[in-house]
């Protein structure tokens, strides 16, 4: 498969995840523990890019989050920038071709994103603890499972290919 075609499939997959986030998710399950397909899309893209580009992509996705939930404007931008940058760096530490490694990366990303957003928005201690120990792990788990399912279904689309 040519690199251009691979890129096309990746971005098509990105669009598919956006549609899942804004159309399928509200129809099926939009609770606090529901999978975050927007973050999933970000993670799938940033583990294939340079850390700097990943940070910019994180900032843009964070802006989308902040615009839709402006309770603490900027917290989402900060959280997504850090998560995207770390995910891009994470690729250098371990090659994320393994499905379980990918699932772990998605779960870790969701948990860290939620932790930074909750901290940056000044959430009181008890709610912060519930968010970090109950809701963030549940959302991380559901996102990881959803990501795993998508990778199994569209493995060829999201496969990492190294340029010579």
């Amino acid at each position, binding site marked *: 498969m040519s690199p251009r075609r*691979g890129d096309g499939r990746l971005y098509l997959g990105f669009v598919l995840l956006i549609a899942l986030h804004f159309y399928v998710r509200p129809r099926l399950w939009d609770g606090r523990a529901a999978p975050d397909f927007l973050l999933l899309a970000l993670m799938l893209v940033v583990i294939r890019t340079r850390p700097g580009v990943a*940070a910019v992509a994180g900032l843009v996705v964070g802006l989308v989050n902040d615009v*839709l939930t*402006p309770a603490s*404007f900027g917290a989402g931008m900060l959280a997504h920038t*850090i998560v995207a940058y770390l995910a891009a760096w994470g690729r250098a530490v371990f090659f994320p071709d393994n499905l379980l490694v990918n699932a772990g990366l998605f779960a870790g990303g969701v948990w860290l994103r939620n932790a930074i*957003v909750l901290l940056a928005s000044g959430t009181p201690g008890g709610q912060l603890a519930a968010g970090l120990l109950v809701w963030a792990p549940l959302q991380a788990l559901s996102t990881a499972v959803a990501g795993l399912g998508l990778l199994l279904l569209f493995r060829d689309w999201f496969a990492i290919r190294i340029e010579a």
Partner: protein
Amino acid sequence: MIRSPGRVTSRSDTLLFSACLLLAVGAIALPNRWSLPLATGVRETALLPLLWLQERAEEGRTSRARFQAIQAQRDSAVVAAAALPALEIENQRLRALLGLRDRSGFTTVPAEVLHQAAPTEGRTLLLGVGRGTGARIGDPVMAPEGLVGVVLSVGKQSTIAMTWAHPDFRVSAVSEDGSVLGIVAPSQNTEASEAFLEFRGVAYRDTVATGTLVVTSGLGGVFPKGIPVGRVAGIRAEQLGWERVYRLMPMVNPGHVGHVLIVRAPSGPEPVP
């Protein structure tokens, strides 16, 4: 497409990351009067197709899964409304006898709640109606069960409502029998795992029994009188000799509400929230 591994992250990556961090921190520091219009601008332009998609999804879910619940609510409302004409006539007659003016009515605008995935989602809600429906900043937002919050910003196609869980939310409230007046605000208790409300500023001599319904008082001109806010669940704190703070269980959970009503006052200047 991933590039060849083993390369050292360039300085430009670090610079880009630092710039993004600075932008994010700058956005956090932005005051509401700048960040809200900025958010509205992005929402009304770049994100419009995505919001349109989510609105269609919410409508689809409503028309299928919640149809029976809404039908049951409608039937109950019809039964309750059957007694209203007689009550209205009696009310008008009594008001005329007492020499009182006609009670000012209000209209409502129904709105779909577009829930998001962010962990702070319950503090603000994105509503699928815009300026065209007549929604204005400062309009109260309520669900059939009670008060949800107040409109924070209005765009052409969407509206942001601040819920009672937002740290800046305040409403003047009164016990159901009208005997005890106070201010309702979200609790600042750091140990509670869920957000709840406090009924503050209650004079020490006044006692409110557990289970008492607390409703909006109508003072201040933002919230109309009589919208249920919460039920007293016990004493939260006592300032010896002058004030009691009661714990309130809110009537509405913003995270679960699917439809809301934006309450429109019949006329008057735009209130400042």
